[in-house]
């Protein structure tokens, strides 16, 4: 096993900077999610680590050694491709055996290792099938078995669950996490899906236009986003914009919002505050004040019922705010009703605007 260090890596295609001075430390044995919109450079970054493509500048080390001159086949990585990339001319077992057999392992070793890998992904009985005889989820698991059977130092996964439906996806997430924990391999997981990133990984890196926007444990990124982009890309957020006061911001209409976390900014600068929809309490006018300094009046414009919770859209001073309320059986608020929103400073993140 080995950690991966990416230091100041840049890669351009023509005039387009696909990676712009990216530095990330992937800890040994960790599960790291790379998140970002389409075209943000996630695949490009994985390809640099795998060695399919080479950075214009910067350094990549695996297990502390620079891999600049190490070809793909010597890097000892395992990769799961978005389209699975199973060899159609081989059986499932031969696909899994491929890495061992090119390495020159004996038949007996190959047989036991392949069986063990297939058992690990719960496909022990399907070794004789051809890839085209498998379902999407099964192919996915074969690709995973093939990638881990060689005991790679690093496992690279490029949106491996992208093509699966929701139920299968959740099953595979659990299975993938279990396997990763079992073999303890450093794992870098590319995904579009923020929920997937939040639930599975130890750390998350958010990429945008080839730059690393923010990086850290899921809770930290969720609770303390450093930019409006991070706040809205990972989870949902209400953004207020105004001038910095000292402990928060003042909106254009004079309302003060007190922020308890986030950046420390000099008074007078432009700044924003991000508040997660589930942190806001919504009440009818009649409700008693609860001592929170952040209070806004508004009017419900819409309610979307989503089973265990409801989302209220509240109009306030030309802005639509989102509030998520657990459906605990209390009375629902009608559209058009005047409401008061309250939330604590601890739920308010101060973000510098650049």
């Amino acid at each position, binding site marked *: 096993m080995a950690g991966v260090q990416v230091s100041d890596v840049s890669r351009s295609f023509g005039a387009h900077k696909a990676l712009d001075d990216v530095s990330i430390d992937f800890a040994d044995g960790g599960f790291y999610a790379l998140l970002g919109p389409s075209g943000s450079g996630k695949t490009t970054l994985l390809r640099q680590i*795998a060695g399919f493509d080479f950075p214009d500048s910067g350094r990549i080390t695996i297990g502390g050694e620079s891999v600049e001159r190490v070809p793909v*086949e010597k890097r000892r990585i*395992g990769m799961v*491709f978005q*389209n699975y990339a199973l*060899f159609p001319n081989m059986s499932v077992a031969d696909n899994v055996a491929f*890495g061992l057999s090119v390495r020159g392992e004996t038949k007996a070793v190959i047989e036991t290792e392949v069986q063990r890998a297939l058992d690990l992904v719960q496909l022990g009985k399907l070794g004789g099938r051809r890839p085209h005889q498998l379902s999407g989820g099964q192919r996915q698991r074969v690709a995973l078995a093939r990638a881990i059977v060689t005991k790679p130092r690093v496992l690279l996964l490029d949106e491996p669950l992208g093509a699966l439906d929701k139920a299968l996806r959740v099953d595979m997430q659990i299975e993938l996490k279990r396997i990763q924990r079992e073999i303890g391999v450093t794992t870098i997981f590319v995904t579009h899906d923020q929920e997937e990133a939040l639930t599975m990984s130890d750390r998350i890196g958010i990429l945008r236009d080839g730059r690393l926007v923010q990086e850290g444990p899921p809770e930290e990124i969720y609770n303390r986003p450093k930019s409006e982009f991070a706040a809205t890309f990972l989870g949902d957020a209400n953004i207020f914009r105004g001038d910095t006061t000292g402990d928060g911001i003042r909106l254009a209409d004079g309302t003060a919002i007190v922020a308890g976390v986030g950046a420390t900014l000099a008074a007078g600068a432009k700044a924003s505050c991000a508040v997660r929809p589930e942190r806001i309490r919504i009440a009818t006018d009649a409700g008693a004040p609860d001592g929170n300094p952040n209070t806004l009046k508004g009017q419900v414009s819409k309610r979307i019922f989503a089973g265990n919770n409801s989302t209220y859209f509240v109009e306030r001073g030309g802005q639509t705010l989102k509030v998520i309320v657990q459906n605990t059986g209390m009375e629902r608020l009608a559209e058009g009703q005047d409401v008061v929103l309250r939330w604590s400073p601890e739920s308010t993140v101060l973000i510098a605007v650049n």
Partner: protein
Amino acid sequence: MAAATASRSGLRSALPLLTPAYLWLTVAIFLPLSAMVFFSFMTELPLSGKPWAFTLGNYAAFFSQSLYLTLLLASLRLGLEVTLWCIVIGYPAAYVLAKVLKGRSREAIFLLVILPFWSNGLVRIFSWAMVLREGGILDTALNAVLPFKINIDLMYSYPAVIIGLVHSYVPYMVLTCYLTLQAIDDSLIEAGRSLGASRLQVLKRVIIPLSMPGLVAGAALIFVPVVGSFMEPRILGGRTGTFYGTVIEDQFVAVFNWPLGAALSFILLAVVLVILAVASPVLRRAA
């Protein structure tokens, strides 16, 4: 039920489209070919006005004279060698076209590969004659570069026949292999390498097996006509260029023994079909 109806009505609507092709095949291939089968069992051409009768003698001639068998074997060997050279030259070219080159440069090289296809066969062969003969282009060029004097006179030799045929037929191999290689997803190559296989191992274990259909199709397209070829052997081979195909041609254009020519052709057809039938399951298993 609905699908069956749809496919039947699909066939019916396709009929007008298929009819010209079938008519053409009937007129252009089936009728003359049946006439040839008929001729091959005759003593004389009925057109010549001489009396004629049915006979098996034309087929017997093949077995009574060892020359025909010797020439057939030589032609089969020629077909095999030309096919192998076409693979050796055409497959790497197809690989580079499909997997290495992109955009403009791919189009340019593609054109170069296809060019012999579009040039007239005779022009092609006589250009080779100019290149290969003593004091020809190859000879002069080599002597201009090399410090010592050498004599390159490949004209009227077996290698000259091979060179001419390979040049004529290599585009088939490039095209069929290009099509199958093109269809192989690049991520399969990357997957192979990420699993620790060198480029060569990926080629051997993934790419070649997956491009087998193209290789087989190309080989069949080349082998069959080369075994019966006569133009290249005659012009580039000179006295060494007597093959089964040239003997058949002689029967039609020089000796005017059409019945014997027809019989020899059908024996060749039978032999080639048997070879393909024997080879195809072996190749299919390899793929």
